[in-house]
């Protein structure tokens, strides 16, 4: 199961628009995608779950993908987080 740890470097973490942008992107893939922070796992396609994780600037999160196109989804999402 491909996964990668990323550090949120932007000012607001995954709060405001970035949460919506991230969840929307995740929802465009067929595979399962999880976002993990401090052992809490969230469905990355669910904006409410992503918000609930309360990811702020400097937090380290893991993106975990499983299923069709998992590798591609992972690299796209890691890139997206870097550009937020």
């Amino acid at each position, binding site marked *: 199961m491909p996964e990668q740890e990323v550090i949120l470097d*932007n*000012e*607001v973490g995954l*709060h*405001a*628009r*970035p*949460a*919506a942008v991230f*969840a*929307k992107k995740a*929802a465009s893939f067929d595979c399962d995608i999880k976002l993990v922070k401090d052992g809490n796992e969230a*469905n990355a*396609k*669910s*904006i*409410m*779950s992503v*918000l*609930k994780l*309360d990811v*702020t600037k400097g937090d380290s999160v893991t993106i975990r993908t499983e299923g069709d196109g998992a590798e591609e989804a992972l690299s796209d999402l890691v890139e997206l987080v870097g550009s937020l």
Partner: protein
Amino acid sequence: MRTLQGTPASPGVAVAPAWIFSRAALDLPKESVEETDLEVERLRDSAEQVASDLEARSAKAEGELAEVLDAQAMMARDPEMIDAAVEAVRTKRTPAPRAVVDAGETFAEALQASENEYMAARASDVRDVCVRIARRLVGADDTLSQMSQRSVVVADELPPADVGELDRDLVAGIAIAQGSRTSHTAIVARALGIPAVVGLGEVEVDPGDEIAVDGDSGQVFVEPDEKTRSEIESRASRAEDRRRHLIERAASLEGSTRTRDGRRVEVAVNVATEVELKAGLEAGAEGVGLFRTELLYLDRTEAPSRAEQSAAVRNLLDPLEGKRLVIRTFDFGADKPVPFLSLPTEENPAMGVRGVRLARDQPELLDDQLGAIADAASTGDRIAIMAPMVATAEEARWFVERVERAEMEAEVGVMLEVPAAVFMAGEIAEVCDFLSIGTNDLTQYLFAADRQNGRLGSLQDPFAPALLRAVKAVCDAADGRAWVGVCGEAAADPLWAMIAVGLGVEELSMGPESILEMRVSLSESTLDGCRAAAAAALAATDAAGARGAAEKALG
């Protein structure tokens, strides 16, 4: 009769039955579901309909509102929320409306527990979305579009998605428990000319109760007595007669406003949103004299992107069709909530690091805004850019250079609102294309009288000869090198405007509700009359004297 006191948010009066916009009125079914498959299908369908409805509204909206609606559309499709609701329907036979409200509540509570203000606000977005889905399921969509009888809308607050649906012909007035004069509801109400009172605290009324709204005094009367009712009604009908009369007189006016003896005066509109621009253009505004750009920044946890800022400018340029758009660069400081800047607290923010001072402190923020304007501009647009809070000629020069570096075709000017700038208006006019007098702040600084302090009302009268002399000093100093406009509240008063025209002001910018009357008044005046009014007012010793003298001079 009960009398409630709130904050006046949009002028005018109205009396009509209450139309309660209340989320509590939703009656959720309690009996267990028999056919769970069918119920799940209904749930998914309704959620999808709500999502696409919100998306459609987002597409029509702008800026932050568009973003909120877009995020809400995603919430309506949220797989975790839907799964939780479906699970409740299947395993507990919970009716879909209840299941979706409960599922949303679980998330909302988690978000609300966060210390982050932004997250708490999203909790109410989640609840709003789930209740919308539930309402669709029980067939009780209570959007304002379903109102069929002229009413006063009473609400705790109006969700952003619903404000856009206010219909001037049906909504007689608005009474809101929450909110402030700068809330979205207040802005839209003013633009549409709907009397509104906000910040009433609790509003306990039943559907159909007669409600009188006084948007001038901020009072709301529940079941008004005969005397109050007839007074409000006659004020409302006088205002309506006046409006009809103005429309009749305005019908014969040509595109641009001129006095009877041919002096051209540009009557422009002050806007923060597209809805105000639309209302202004309908009333015959000849351009935008003040675009307040602060809405793009307030309450934001990250800076608005250049693309978003550019789109906001473009959205105003399109309907203007080549008419001038005067953009004021951001004017905020420690007094406004701009989370992404984390500005230090100041003892006296009105006189602190705000406007052009903040721009010099953080030039990249200004460059970003100017770049966004340059991106938005295309052939045929008429753009003017002005800096707020300029106090010295050196600041004006710095700003002009900054705009020049952004490489676009635009007039460059400054707001004249600091007394020091009045004395240096000649030197400032030397480097600028125009000077726009902001009477609200200029009065506050000229009289050292806090504009928020109601007890100092007598020191905030725009007819005060001291302010009129300042306007004269600016016009004289500019001496044709730069055009002079006025964009404060005083510019909306026809008598004050005539004095200003007599002093040499060439452009007047005001709220959309004042445009029609201003065009008519100026078209029926003469430049000679305006000059006589100006001379008489300048010679007075106080505001009341100036007003009286100007009226007398105009006959």
